[in-house]
């Protein structure tokens, strides 16, 4: 007995300046089902859900709720329609009580907007009981564990008479025991008639919990199938099966002697990381978000505190406790977030280029601006940075050119080991190719590159070797020949 779906999103597209994030995606949700949304990082899952929850506006397409077309204007409107979201980052106010959080903005009041505390606590207790939770509703939220805080969010969603609950990777911070509880809650919600959209990377969860699954890839919906009728290998194939359209330069570097070696490196987020890197090599690091890739880069660059293990640069043990020391060891770090970590947006192109290496142009505290200008001109030319002048504020440059400025910073500081964290994020296709070619040229000159990337084609297209990380450890290593999208993704996903 097939009834009309509760929610039908058809032909949804979303463009951001320069990027097509969603391309005619179809998605359907039945009453009382758990529908898993599956896809790699950047496949468009979050964007699709943000459109549904009113955080983003779709560029085109239709949304029908109960067969009636709706246009969701903002998050408040989505709530009124019965759509609630529980984000990975929970949205609770730590200093308020559980009850106050649940009814924030909708507090029951007696008169003159004096909050009726008793009614508030009573209503909250009612809701929590329905979820099988026995905490005191007047306890501060900051005293709760993550799992309990999540329950508060669920209670909040229920109090809004939610029909569609979106959960974004809800298990990523939970222990096994807590996950079990969460699943029990989800089943209870389902019996209560709530439909759940469940975003997750973890395939095991999908088979335990899901009714149906929709796979997204590169902003397109690839397939929707019944969980019972599919298998892990098939899902992995659906997630990665794409043509390699991008052009990667033919790598021409010869791999030389070892330049960097990690032995048993351990930090608060990393366990026992060992590998070595050679001159002229591109070492790709793949893994899902939160697998510890950025933490690894930060540990090598002196940002994360190293608890155990040793870093060797050119065979010598080095204690890297600050970025300055890392730079002195010849390491350069192109951070994932250009704008907040890579550049000083209010300063000029020239000033940014020389920031790590002003010392080279300084005598007696004074900056020799002519010498500096010469160096900057050289890198602007070499990297083909498109800027009207050295004095142009870097904020006015395009994403690709900004990325080249960051790259120039480290060339200027004469780095020999480059760590690229998501080097082509937010960069248009043309600039991407240019960055790949630059990486190739760098390695041809003997530079060694560690490239962290969520884009598998990029990792496979550029790397001489691929390390796969999972929960703070190295889960596998592949040579360029062995590495395929299926193998790498499987290694990143499987526990």
């Amino acid at each position, binding site marked *: 007995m097939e009834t009309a779906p509760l929610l039908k999103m058809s032909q949804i597209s979303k463009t951001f300046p320069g990027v097509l994030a969603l391309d005619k995606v179809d998605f359907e949700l039945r009453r009382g089902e758990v529908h898993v949304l599956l896809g790699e990082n950047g496949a468009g899952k979050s964007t699709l859900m943000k459109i549904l929850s009113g955080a983003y506006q779709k560029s085109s397409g239709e949304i029908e709720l109960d067969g009636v077309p709706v246009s969701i204007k903002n998050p408040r409107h989505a709530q009124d329609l019965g759509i609630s979201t529980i984000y990975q980052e929970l949205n609770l106010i730590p200093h308020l009580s559980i009850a106050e959080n649940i009814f924030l903005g909708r507090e029951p009041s007696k008169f003159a907007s004096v909050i009726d505390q008793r009614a508030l606590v009573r209503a909250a207790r009612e809701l929590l009981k329905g979820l099988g939770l026995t905490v005191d509703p007047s306890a501060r939220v900051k005293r709760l564990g993550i799992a309990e805080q999540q329950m508060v969010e669920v209670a909040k969603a229920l109090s809004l008479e939610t029909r569609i609950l979106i959960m974004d990777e809800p298990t990523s911070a939970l222990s096994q025991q807590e996950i079990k509880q969460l699943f029990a809650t989800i089943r209870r919600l389902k019996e209560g008639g709530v439909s759940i959209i469940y975003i997750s990377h973890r395939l095991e969860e999908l088979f335990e919990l899901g009714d149906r699954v929709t796979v997204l890839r590169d902003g397109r919906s690839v397939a929707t199938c019944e969980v019972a009728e599919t298998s892990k290998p098939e899902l992995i194939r659906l997630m990665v099966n794409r043509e390699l359209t991008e052009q990667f330069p033919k790598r021409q570097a010869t791999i030389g002697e070892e330049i960097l070696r990690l032995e048993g490196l351990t930090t608060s987020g990393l366990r026992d990381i060992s590998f070595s890197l050679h001159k002229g090599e591109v070492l790709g690091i793949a893994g899902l978000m939160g697998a510890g890739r950025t933490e690894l880069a930060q540990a090598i660059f002196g940002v994360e505190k190293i608890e155990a293990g040793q870093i060797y640069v050119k065979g010598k043990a080095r204690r890297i406790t600050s970025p300055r020391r890392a*730079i002195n060891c010849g390491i350069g770090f192109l951070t994932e977030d250009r704008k907040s970590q890579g550049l*000083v947006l*209010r300063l000029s192109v020239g*000033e940014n280029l020389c920031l790590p290496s002003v010392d080279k142009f300084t005598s007696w505290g004074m900056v020799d601006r002519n010498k500096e200008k010469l160096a900057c001109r050289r890198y602007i030319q070499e990297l083909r940075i498109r800027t009207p002048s050295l004095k142009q504020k870097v904020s006015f440059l395009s994403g690709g050119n900004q990325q080249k400025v960051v790259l120039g910073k480290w060339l200027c500081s004469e780095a020999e080991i480059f760590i690229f964290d998501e080097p082509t994020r937010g960069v248009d296709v043309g600039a991407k190719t240019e960055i790949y070619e630059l990486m190739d040229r760098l390695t041809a000159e003997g530079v060694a590159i560690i490239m962290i990337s969520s884009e598998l084609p990029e990792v496979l297209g550029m790397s001489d070797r691929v390390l796969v990380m999972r929960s703070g450890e190295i889960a596998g290593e592949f040579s360029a020949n062995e590495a395929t999208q299926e193998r790498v993704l499987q290694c990143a996903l499987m526990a």
Partner: protein
Amino acid sequence: MRPNGIALRQNFLLHHARQLGTLSGLLVLGLVLWVLTPHFLTLSNLLNVAEQATIIAIVAVGMTFVILTAGIDLSVGSVLAFAGVVMASALHAGAPLPFALLAGLVTGTVCGLVNGLLITLGRLPPFIATLGMMSVARGTALMYTGGRPISGFSENFRWLATGEVLRVPIPVIVMIGIYAIAFFVLTRTKLGRYTYAIGGNEEATHLSGVNVRFYKTVVYGLAGLFSGLAAILLTARLNSAQPIAGMMYELDAIAATVIGGTSLLGGEGNVLGTLIGALIMAVLRNGLNLLGVSSFLQQVVIGSVIIVAVLIDMALKRRGKYS
């Protein structure tokens, strides 16, 4: 290949559009006052205005450095009073003049460095660290003197305020010298470069290998140093070091800095603007006095000017008149 003179000048104008705006504000203000009261535009009055401006202007140099790093220093006025009484008591104890002056400068600098260390090593917000120092320095100055001013100094010392070179008062010369040095430091030295970078994006600067803690501490030390310098000039002018000197100077210095176009968010602005800002405040006070406006109304006018100046600045920025 050096740019020729004209291009250089154009470039300078382009990069100081914001300061030119403030400057035209100052000129308009002068013009209005000239029309309203003929006495305004006499050499002796103008020099008087400049001299009135010196103390705040010098304190505001340090404030500009601090605000450029996206910080704030509420303690400058109290540190000024503290440095003043330390120097004055050294003079009264018979210390040689250079030594006493040094004692004043060192006192100011040390207070500033303590601020800096509280902020960098203690991780206190600048507002809190310097608010504490404001109270501690003021209280120490009051305890030290028993609340009484230390007055009466040698002619040699007072010459620092009363002396003239080519009719220009010494404090004005000192002020101009300080601004020239500060301008140079901000545009040509590593310290200046890092000051802007830290205010623009502290994390990116740290990740570029800059010792952010060190440079921030130095900047607060500088603010203290300039308070010490202002203390010397003020004490020489009044022939008295008062433990209650410099009350509210921190606010005047912040106002001068902000009117001069330095962003409270850090990373943007320069000392030329601050100088003009300090002059605007002084001209305004002077003009209102000449016009016989009551001191109560003066406060209202000055407060309004600060607000209007920043409103105009923000409106222009939104329209992208200058970057």
